[in-house]
């Protein structure tokens, strides 16, 4: 492979990794607050559609992005309602959310299939984009990729350097302790789920506004599930989520390249790669977690609903 091709591949990895990064960060925020959301796949699908439609109708990519985020928030609000108010099983609610979200995106999106939207264009960052190798890999993308550079830092900052983040983590580790400290763990959890939904929604918006620039069905393509797995891989840390997202972006970009290059490897086998990699990554992280036994990285009260007293 020529150096140009390798650089192009890396650049494509950064792009393909961005939506996964947003979704992974979103799920980290939600799980840090103690709520497992297996509906990410549905959230991504629906928000990709919402972003597309709004951008298509208003012509504003930014409004589209906002719509994607809000659609994610809204759908996760449903999860929050079912799990926090009605104490539904988080696993099952998440699955239902995926069915509902993916279905809704396809249903509402049918009239728009094949239609294009402008979305976000590529902007080369002045000066930085001229750095050899790194410039083309990192700094000749659309705005959302740059937003993706900031997002992990912002999430890390939120979780570790703000009182809101401290409370949110307490709600995920031990809701009773948060309550005894005068905080409202239910509200903190809801915030985590909704904010996480917003981030996942940004990931979904990326798919239609910056990745394809047109609407097709099945846009989410399992990325939501990859994100759920990457949270475990990342040990719930935003920094490691970046590594995971890049890894997956790389595999997806590689697989697309290979298909486009007219290889004689059947496409079904190539398409398996990301899913197989997900399983491998899970195995790898489980082994790592075992090595560092003792303090498990998962929030202690993850998946456990707060039951009413009395």
């Amino acid at each position: 492979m020529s150096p140009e091709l390798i650089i192009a591949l890396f650049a494509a990895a950064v792009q393909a990794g961005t939506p996964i990064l947003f979704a992974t960060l979103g799920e980290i925020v939600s799980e840090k607050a103690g709520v497992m959301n297996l509906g990410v796949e549905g959230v991504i699908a629906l928000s990709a559609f919402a972003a597309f439609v709004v951008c298509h109708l208003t012509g504003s990519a930014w409004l589209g992005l906002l719509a994607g985020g809000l659609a994610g928030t809204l759908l996760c609000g449903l999860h929050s309602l079912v799990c926090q108010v009605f104490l539904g099983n988080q696993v099952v609610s998440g699955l239902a959310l995926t069915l509902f979200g993916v279905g809704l995106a396809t249903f509402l999106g049918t009239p728009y299939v094949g239609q294009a939207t402008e979305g976000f264009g590529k902007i080369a960052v002045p000066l930085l984009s001229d750095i050899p190798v790194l410039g083309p890999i990192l700094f000749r993308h659309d705005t959302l990729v740059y937003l993706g550079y900031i997002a992990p830092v912002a999430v890390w900052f939120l979780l570790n350097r703000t009182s809101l983040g401290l409370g949110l983590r307490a709600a995920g580790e031990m809701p009773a302790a948060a309550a005894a400290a005068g905080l409202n763990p239910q509200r903190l959890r809801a915030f985590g789920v909704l904010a996480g939904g917003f981030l996942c929604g940004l990931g979904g918006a990326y798919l239609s506004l910056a990745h394809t620039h047109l609407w097709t069905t099945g846009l989410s393509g399992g990325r939501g599930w990859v994100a759920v797995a990457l949270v475990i891989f990342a040990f719930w840390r935003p920094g490691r989520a970046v590594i995971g997202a890049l890894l997956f972006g790389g595999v997806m970009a590689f697989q697309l390249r290979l298909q486009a290059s007219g290889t004689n490897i059947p496409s079904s086998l190539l398409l398996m790669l990301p899913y197989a990699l997900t399983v491998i990554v899970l195995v790898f992280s489980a082994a790592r977690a075992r090595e560092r036994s003792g303090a498990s990285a998962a929030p202690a009260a993850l998946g456990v609903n707060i039951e009413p007293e009395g």
Partner: protein
Amino acid sequence: MDERKHTGSPLGTPHGARPDARTDIGTDLGIGDVLPQVRLTGVTKRFGNVLANDGISLSIMPGRIKALLGENGAGKSTLMAMLAGRFKPDEGRIEVAGKAVDFASPREAIAAGIGMVYQHFMLVENMTVAENVLLGQEGGFFLNPAEMRRVVGGLAERYGLPIDPGARVGDLSMGERQRVEILKLLHRESQVLIFDEPTAVLTPLEAEALFAALRAMSAQGKAIVFISHKLEEVLSVADEIAILRRGRIEGEFLASEVHSPAELARRMVGRDVVLEIDRDEVSAGRMVLDVKHLSGEGLEDVSLDLKRGEILAIVGVAGNGQQQLVEVVCGIAEPQAGEVSILGKSWADFFHSRGWKGELAWIPEDRAGLATGRGLSLTDNLLLTTREGFAHGQWLERGRASETTRGIVRDNDVRPGRIEAQAWQLSGGNLQKFVLGRELYREPRLIVAEQPTQGLDVSATEAVWQRLLESRRTAGVLLVTGDLSEALQLADRVAVMFRGRVMGLFPVTDTAQVERIGSLMAGLRD
């Protein structure tokens, strides 16, 4: 201290539980020239038809340590939950520093200067000491970890409660965790500090340190409430004692008015209590458990033996290897080094060919999440350890299992009496009676009982003790307990554990050794 009137307490008389007198006393102590920090008047709380607190009147004075004494279920925790803003009273008034308050949330109670140290610490193990102390009190949206550590470190130093503010709470000992809880309250400048069974997890030395801290804080003008059912402790640390029984204040008096733990016990229970239980001697039989030089997994060279007809108590502060020992004896963990033989067989042989009947029964400390399945019916819970007795090949005789369950429920007075009830619907005492009944149904020759009476009221405790003593006729009992008096009541011999070692093993009749148990528990040999 001020000269307040404490005389005229009708409960000063030995047989004194007179419900009609309670309101008089409740307010009596509050009258003086110092304003009570907290005053409760006629506070009532119901859950369904259950009256958890019935017209409670109580004054909590600055600079005084008030002990609140009562059995489990007497309504202590409900009362405290109302003070902490978790429940709202149905009736009555709560005043803080003379002003009526109506807490809508724990936050408001905290703001009013009321702080709680819960029995089960409200600490996030995965966070640092500083984060825990400042949780909910960060004083700004943005956090500066270095500054947080400085603030908490300074606070710890000022009150003489040394701790590393950057340490992860999960890595701390129980005594240190309690210090974190106290620091939380001190940081919030709570004026009322409520301690719920604070010594349950402490060594005698740590408890002494805590008492010193309590006295120091009280000398600084804090009002302190000390909830306990350990009578000696209450007598040694409290200035005033209030007794809560069946949701009511049944007596309030000065600690100096009480002369002995027995007198206090009588006032607490409302009748003479058998603090001494009859135990007739049972002659020792064959060896049922022999542990030689067991090491690994937190254990160091543990040797002990147990014969039929004998109760051997393992005492020590929780987390000093008792659990590891139990797990080896009960077949959960394999012995790493050393020898364990059970009923004459080696560990491997015994657990390889283990039968359900006539062998080993384990009554774990966690009866709701380990010994029983919360969502299983009583019949299913019976089958949990006895299913082999009801199975023909794969076929399960459910009818006979139900019949047996009914018998166990009846014989052990387990309430409610229906066998379809699920484990979560039973109170701790009833569940324990059921578990004990089930395990004894297996006619074990070796019984491992962990904290069998923790959280039980006096009558349930008596029942459990009675059954354990009876079972000596056919079995040897390994009793793991943190309650020294329980150990001395029941056991023939006592082994003290500290950091995975047996610090001493001696008969309870050896008074010289028994005297030293406290220091042995803290790891001091001399």
